[in-house]
């Protein structure tokens, strides 16, 4: 058995400290010991984007990171988007504009968009595509996702809130 390492990270505002094998990927750590199964695994080689999360506010492919690399980090997963009061505006927009079918890719898309819209509240189509070019959806053909993004932009503007959930 490999030597265990202690990692400490704040995930969706909750601090966790655990022993992990150094080879444990971050996505396996989140989905396993932390039971945050909303982050999905589609390829485990960095192409599909299903596993996208925020690490210190920046998107990362959690299949390509080790849990030990996230030691000390603040992490947001899809479970961190909604509050007890309701869904995040980007989540609402995806529902309203039929931005998903099977929904397996959706958490990754949402996390990518949280980053994009928090940095750039009014992106052009080219900027949106540039960011979403790294997320694969096999179901929708992307048109409804683009519509969802536009709806999310409008919702955030109306509500006057930033896309990124505040890091607790």
């Amino acid at each position, binding site marked *: 058995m490999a030597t265990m390492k202690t990692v400490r990270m704040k995930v969706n505002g909750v601090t966790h400290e655990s022993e992990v094998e150094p080879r444990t990927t971050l996505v396996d750590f989140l*989905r396993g010991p932390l039971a945050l199964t909303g982050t999905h695994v589609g390829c*485990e080689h960095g192409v*599909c984007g299903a596993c996208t999360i925020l690490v210190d506010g920046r998107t990362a492919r959690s299949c390509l990171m080790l849990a030990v690399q996230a030691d000390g980090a603040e992490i947001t997963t899809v479970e961190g988007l909604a509050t007890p009061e309701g869904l995040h505006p980007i989540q609402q927009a*995806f529902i*309203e504009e039929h931005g*998903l079918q099977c929904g397996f890719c959706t958490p990754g898309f949402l996390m990518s968009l949280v980053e994009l819209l928090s940095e750039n509240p009014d992106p052009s189509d080219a900027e949106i595509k540039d960011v979403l070019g790294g997320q694969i959806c096999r179901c929708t053909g*992307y048109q409804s996702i683009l519509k969802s993004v536009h709806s999310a932009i409008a919702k955030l503007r109306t509500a006057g809130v930033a896309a990124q959930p505040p890091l607790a």
Partner: protein
Amino acid sequence: MAVKIPNSIDELPTSSPRFIGHRVKRVEDTGLVTGRTEFIDNVSMTGMLHCAILRSPIAHAKIEKIDVSAALDLPGVVAVVTGEDAAKWSHPAASSPDGWGTYCLPADKVRFVGEPVAAVAATSRYIAEDALELIEIEYEPLDVVSDPVAAMEDGSPLVIEERGSNVMLQRVFNWGDTDAAFAAADHVFSEKFRWNRLGANPIETYGCISEWDPTELGITVRGAFQSPSHMALGRAMTFGLPSNKVRMIAHPHGGSFGGKGGVRGTDVSLLLSRKTGGRPIKWIEDRMEYLAAGGSQAWDRRYEFSIAVTNDGIVTGLKVKLVDDIGANGEGFGAISAAKPLAAFTGPYTIGAAQYDLSLVATNKAPASPYRGMGPPPHNFALEQMMDIAARSLGIDTAEFRRRNFIPKDAFPYIIPSGNEYDSGDYEAVLDKVLALSEYEKLREEQKLAREQGRLVGIGVASAIEPGVFDWNAYAVVGVQGTGVPEGATVSIDILGKVMVRVGFALEGQGQYTLVTQLVADYFGLEMEDVSVTMLDTASAPPAFGPGGSRLGVAITGAVLGACDRIRVKMCKVVAGLMQTEPENIQLMDGVFGIPGVSEAQMPMAQVAGTMLGASHLLPPDVDPRPEATHVWTAAGRTPVDEEGRTKSYLTAAHAVHIVLLEIDPDTGMVEIQKYVLVDDCGTRLNPATVEGQTQGSVAQGIGAALLEEYVYDEDGQLLTSTYMDYLLPTIHDVPALVMGEVVTPSPFSPLGAKGCGEGAIHTTPAAVMCAINDALVPLGTRANEVPAAPNRLWKLIHTARENTSSD
């Protein structure tokens, strides 16, 4: 009394439907956007172990020796299984054609790269994978056959020796006097086409948790099943179990598109469960496993097409020769994809005679599986290229050429030469609309200008039929048995008038739980929130198949409306008893039962349900007091095949015409789609938003097929595209914005007049894109007959053509 299932929305017991036919929000979505939906890999069970599978690195080899002792010594490893266990506890898999299945772990030899040879159950997936490295296998390589044409020759290495040949099936079908049509033709055009392997690639791979029950001698498997009942039947056969001892619990899954696969992994994990005395074994296929050996690969085809044409541009005959590379065995049921084209062999055209010369061939490649569209997309691609070849040669515009050959709208229902019946359609109206929407004349003018500037701009016009609501009889010619595909639903109303609908399939992405909710809410005058949908496992569900073959929207509509009608009849009896009249006098409208026109004789549905369940003293004597009913729907009028394979198979025939404008960059061979316009007719649209979603997603897959996606094998049978770095799925950059329009000719045969539309555009898109590419290449005098038209292929065609012209 016969159950009454409305054939149109107007016949629903509502004065104005509030949900059916409207773009309602999906009931599935909140769970999905919050990450709460329970995909199979989210599930853990007490005592659960993790399975990893060791796979063959060689395409064809004898297994000389397997030594698992070091793996078993690794702490955390609980069991290892090999071909010996499979031979002891299981049978070769069911297959199409029959008799081409193999064991889930072979004892004697491997037949393709990625074939499972051993598997480990351990306390974690990491340990299980470590253990794989400790298993020692000695292989003796055998000659590999990876080319189906070579595989058909005498003396070829045999993939399955016992069969004595690699030819799985060879048959020539003749429908009408094709030879006479060709003899009488003014023109005959012939061309060869190559469609390379591609496949489904849902973003979630397959996964399951398998349990062998040593006391009941049965199995329970939780998993990402597209069709749980079908999986259950297959497992009963593989493990020699009575079918009532096999229970499948389907979980929501991240897409399937026909290619979820999972049979081998399920069987391997079941062997491990048996070996560990019944521990639950989780097997989650990883992406590289899926690509190499999952339900991933489909349609590896070599075609020869000929058409007979009159001077007026009427196509009178069609001959198709197909060599279909099915891979190492028939367990993936990829062969059904060669049978399905019979359901729309001659497309939307009046072609009166056709011949199909079909060879299914085994090679040392992964077994072929189904993929969305189930076989017609390559056939349509080739047929549509032939239409263009003929049109150009006769100097007729390609859109006009199709118009001349369309089945006229007053000819429906229309039986095509290969036997299927098309229910309804107005193909010219679809064409007219798409021509108008695309401003076709203007596009042709723009193209003319572009050509004058030497640019390779092309316009594709393609038209195809989407057979909807499959029947098993459609696959009889490749050995699949049965007529009818029952789909059941149970509608249950509680004492407060709230409804639970139980179905036999899990979420997959098409929004079918939403559809069920819409139907029941409109039928009983409820809000959508008053209706819940839940899935039953195969031990408790009514007969059900689930999604596939563009069937579920229509089939579940039939099942749900049938169940609602049965409840209505019961409730009418109750209400008639209370109102002291005959049940025939009671009508349901907008959620209220009563005597029409008598305002004091009205009872809301919830009150009727409350009476049935909570006031038995008020009920008439012979009434069944449960406000609950099950209905099992299957398409009427399906028949067994005749001696030429003809039958009424698919119930509905949706139709579409797509127009594509694109430009090829001669320096890179890259294609840019500049305009994509389509009009389709899938009958009544039950939820227009989900219909659009299916269409858009299917266009994307069709573009992937035409331009990007390909499983490449070398001659040693090594897969060269084993990751998503090499197997290219369309991204948001590859899929254009669509202009879409619709024509609606309701089906006279189906519930609410809806036509199957789940497969959608993939029937037409690859054909349309390839028509446009070939249109762009006309000035160079060359053609692209191979799919995908990847940049390397187009570049080569363009440069060879230019060299030829410059050296002339």
